[in-house]
Structures are given as C-alpha cells and as structure tokens.
C-alpha cells in the first residue's frame, strides 16, 4: 500500500509538470493550430538559463527565476516573429518539421553553451520531508504541485475574464472573425508563444529543483507531453490538466509494477500504448473538439 501511495504521489507531481507543459502545447495549438515539438527544449532552456544566472552571477534564486521568465517570454515572441509567421498557410507537416528543426537548433545551442554534463541545481526547496498521513513527502513535491495548481488556476481565470484571454479564445474559434472584430491575430500568436515558453520554463525550473540537476534529457519532456495533450484533446486546457495527471500516474504505476515483470522500459512506452487505445476509441481525445469536415 505504501509503495502504491509513493508511486501515486510522485506520479501526481510529474503529472502536474506534464500538465504545465501540456498547457503550453494547448495554448499554441488553440490559437494557431501548430503542434510545437520544441516545447521540451523550451523547458530545458528555461532550466539551464535559471541555473546559469544563479550560478555565475550569484543572483538570488527568485530574481533569477524572474529573469528566466522574462527571457522565455522574449524567446517565445522572437520564435513567433522570425520562424512561425513565414509559415502561415503552409501544410501541417511543414510546420511540424519547422518545430522539429527548431528543437535541434535549441538543443545544439544549449549543448554548445553548457555542454552535456548534468549541472547541479541550487537548493530551491527545504530538504526536510513533510509527513502526510504515514507517508513522508518531500517539500519540493508540495511546492511544485502548489505552484502548478496556482498557475493553472491563473490561466483559467485569464482565459475566462481578461481581454487578452478572450481575444485568444476568439482567435482560436475563427481567425477571420477575430480579425474582423479588430483583434490583431499576429499579437495573439506572439502572446501564445511567449506564454507557452514561460510555462515550460516554470516547469523546467520546478523539475530541476525536484531532480536536483538539469541535463539534456529534460528535452525528452517535449515528447512525453505529447500523449498527455492527445489524451486530453489538443484544444482543451482542462484536457491538458486531466491528461497530465492521468499520464503521470499511469506512467509511474506501470513502471513500478510492470518493470520487474517485463524488464524495464515500461515507463516510457506505457503512455504511448494508452494513447493508441484512447485514440482508437475517441479520435479527438477526451475533451477535444470534434472537427466536422466539409468539402
């Protein structure tokens, strides 16, 4: 039972970070119909930038975190302006490939600057564990889940009530209608990309804090988040949250119980098997909007 609870809790923690990165995916997909395969690299870059600022310039962690977020926001805007805007009207595969190309460029930049060794993370969270019932839980986990919940809550409010959020939803609904209502679709795209980069950077920093270090494997998060957003439905914020938590738990439970039986690696493949099963029943995910096609 204790084993189960431990798997469940670490699954929920990883799942909440999946949800955060998934949120970035969904925001980009909703406003511009692009699946961003470079999301994992945004996460890795955020984690590296933060640790570099803390490490080399002796800046306190919170200030460094704020600088990282500004950097990510700027990065997102730049990406949109330089790379994505020329791709308007190109086929889906070209845009997918562009983000894949972008991901190898970002990976190369990170490796070129910081090398491939694991860089230790400063201690962000207090190390003494907190007892929840009988189970000791590290404080880093609690902080991560709390900050993810706060962020997700903020974004729900943002989409529901703020002008920019409503404009983003309008753009997602129909770009033409949004344009005719005086919404600048270009600005919305730029905003979407910078939000996506920022939430990924937050995820990266949290993950670095939990794992105690950052390395190139962080970029794999981009691939692992794909089943999450597909499960939830590519255009649903709620779906990203539910999908993230479900996939995090599923991955940890299957890894914990099936790895000894099958000899390792189940953790990596289980989300994808679940994904295929879900897609064959619900082709647009749990909460995704079913597209009605007309000739």
């Amino acid at each position: 039972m204790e084993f189960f609870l431990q798997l469940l809790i670490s699954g929920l923690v990883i799942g909440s970070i999946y949800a955060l990165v998934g949120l970035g995916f969904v925001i980009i997909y909703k406003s511009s119909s692009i699946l961003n395969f470079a999301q994992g690299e945004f996460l890795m870059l955020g984690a590296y930038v933060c640790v570099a600022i803390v490490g080399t310039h002796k800046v306190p962690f919170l200030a460094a975190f704020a600088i990282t977020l500004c950097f990510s926001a700027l990065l997102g805007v730049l990406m949109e302006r330089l790379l994505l805007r020329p791709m308007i009207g190109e086929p889906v595969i070209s845009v997918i490939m562009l983000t894949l190309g972008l991901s190898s460029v970002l990976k190369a930049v990170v490796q070129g600057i910081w090398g491939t060794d694991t860089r230790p993370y400063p201690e962000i969270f207090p190390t003494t564990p907190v007892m929840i019932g009988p189970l000791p839980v590290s404080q880093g986990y609690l902080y991560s889940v709390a900050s993810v919940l706060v962020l997700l809550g903020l974004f729900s409010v943002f989409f529901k009530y703020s002008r920019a959020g409503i404009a983003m939803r309008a753009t997602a609904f129909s770009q033409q209608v949004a344009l005719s209502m005086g919404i600048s679709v270009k600005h919305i795209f730029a905003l979407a990309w910078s939000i996506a980069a920022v939430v990924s950077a937050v995820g990266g920093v949290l993950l670095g804090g939990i794992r105690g270090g950052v390395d190139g494997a962080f970029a794999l998060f981009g691939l692992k988040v794909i089943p999450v957003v597909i499960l939830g439905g590519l255009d649903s914020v709620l779906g990203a949250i539910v999908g993230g938590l479900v996939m995090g738990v599923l991955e940890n439970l299957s890894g914990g119980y099936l790895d000894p039986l099958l000899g390792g690696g189940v953790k990596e493949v289980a989300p994808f098997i679940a994904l295929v099963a879900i897609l064959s029943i619900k082709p647009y995910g749990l909460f995704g909007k079913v597209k009605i096609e007309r000739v």
Partner: protein
Amino acid sequence: MRCGDFRETYAEDMALFETAFARRMMIAFIALMVALPWLASGFWLDIALRVLIAVIAAVGLNILTGFTGQISLGNAAFLAVGAYATAVLAGRWNLPFPLVIPAAGLITALVGMVFGVPSLRLKGLYLAVATLAAHFVIEFGISHWESVTGGVNGISIPSPKAGPLVLANDRQLYFLALPVAASLLLFARNLFRTKVGKAFVAIRDQDISSEVMGVNVFRYKLLSFAVSSFYVGVAGSLLAYQARIISPENFPISLAIDQLGMIIIGGLGSILGSVFGAVFITMLPELLRLVTSALSSTFPELTTLFASVKMGVFGLAIVLFLIFEPDGMAARWHTIKNYWKLYPFSY
C-alpha cells in the same frame, strides 16, 4: 533552337523523360553511378552506399507522407523492422539475399499496415502522434524480445550471400544496392502514373471528395502504408547488411526526424525531391566533418562541439529551407531547369 515545349500525342505527355536530352542525361548519370566504385575511395563509397539506402527509405516515406498525405513519425521503427527481419532471416535461417531483401520488405509492409489501421479514423497531427506511438511500441518490442532480436546487445548479420556468391565488402554491396534503388525509384515514378498512385494523390488533396468520387479511402491508405513500409523495409534490410551489427540504438526517433527532413528539404510529393533530400541530409554531416577537421587547427574546440554543431546545422538547414524554399529542392530544380530549357527565349 527550341522555342517551346510542344507535345502532340498522349504518349509524349505521359513519357517518363520529357525530352531526349533528359533521357541522355539519365543514361550518363547511371553510367557514372556504375563507375563510382572505381572512382571513389573507400570513405566515399561508404557514404554512397548510405546515400542509396537513405534514398530508398526517403522515397518510401514520400509515398506515404508526400503523396498520400499521411504524416508518419514511425519511419525509424519500420527501418528497424526491416533490419531485424534481415538479421533473423539471414543470420538464423541462412537464407540467400535475393529472398531476404524482398521478405524483409514484405514483413515491414505487414507491420506498416497494422500501424496504418488507425489512419482510418485519425488525421493530420493525431495520426502523426499515433505513428510516434508506433515507434516507441516497436522499439520496446525489439529491445525486450531478446530471444529473437538479441535485445539491447544487438544482433550480427552475415554478409549477403546467394549460393557461391558472397558480397563481402562495401563495393560488392554497392552493386546490390544500386540496382535495387534504381528499380524501386523507377517503380515509384511509374506508380504515380497508375490508378493506384492517382488515388493516393486524390486522398492527400481531399480525402472526403476522393471518397465521394469512388476511391476506397481506407483501402488505399492501407495500401500506401504497405507500399511505403515495403520500401523502408528494403532500405532497413540493406542497412543491416551494411552495418553488420545492429542494436535498438541504431534506430532512434531522431532517425525518423532525419528522414522527414529529407523529404521536406527535397520536396514533398516528388520522387526526385526524395533523392535530393536523401543526398543532402546524408552528406551534410560528412561535409561538416570535413570542414571541422580542416578548421580544427585554428579552432580546436570545434571537434569537441562537433555533435552539437551537426545537430544545429541540421536544424538550421531545415528551418531555413522551410522559410525560404517551402517546396523543397525539387521545386528549385524545376525553376532552374525551366529557365534553361528555353534559354534565351523563355517567354
């Protein structure tokens, strides 16, 4: 002097080569390719062999993605299936290569069809992600089915042989790969002059309209997966013969991305484009290696950074191509060719 491109019969309109000049150029090119093993050093021959294998795989992927519009991220896994089929058929059962290569293709075609079934309901991005899942499932299967595949330790493949004939080195293997690649290219080129090929293109352009017009969309999608996977399987088989030892590490997801890069840089929906793209992407790291070794005396840190430089240049090449030449190298080639075809009176 030619002052226009006039076609007077349907046969001319359907001709494989538009002009007699194009046919002569092709014959000259084939002659050059046949002569290559005597002209090139061992290093370049190895690259030439890898280019041929990449060309076959890229044409296969282009049939599925470029011509039928079904995005696939599972190509590395299909290559692995072809390679492992070869390892089992040639290594365990000692079959001759004229049997092994087509059999590897057929096995991969079957696997491809299985993973093509979701295309019945899934489209676009969702299908791309389903094929990504196929990649991870196949990779998991290969590294865990140890009794057959040797697991993560890999498996070795004997030199291709048929009776007394043994193809022991790269040069002999080249003469196996060249006719295979040439005939597969010719088949692909002809495929799109037939009913089946036209059905593929119709599905890519508008699947609902093509269904309304009587194309059995599901059947042709599956057929496209099968044909494409057959090509990839043959490429995987040759790859296994060349590599001599294969393990799951030979087929990472980045290989699938490389191959998508080939057909996008070359040109989606163009056989010629797949060839251009395969040559470009395969040669790029080799050229980079030459450049870095030439510069290593002045910039010694370049050699340590080589892996990231390679990755960065690959990504940058794709990004720049997509932004400045979204239709790929094949489109640029046609522009140049058309300019010179009627030079100097190209009105």
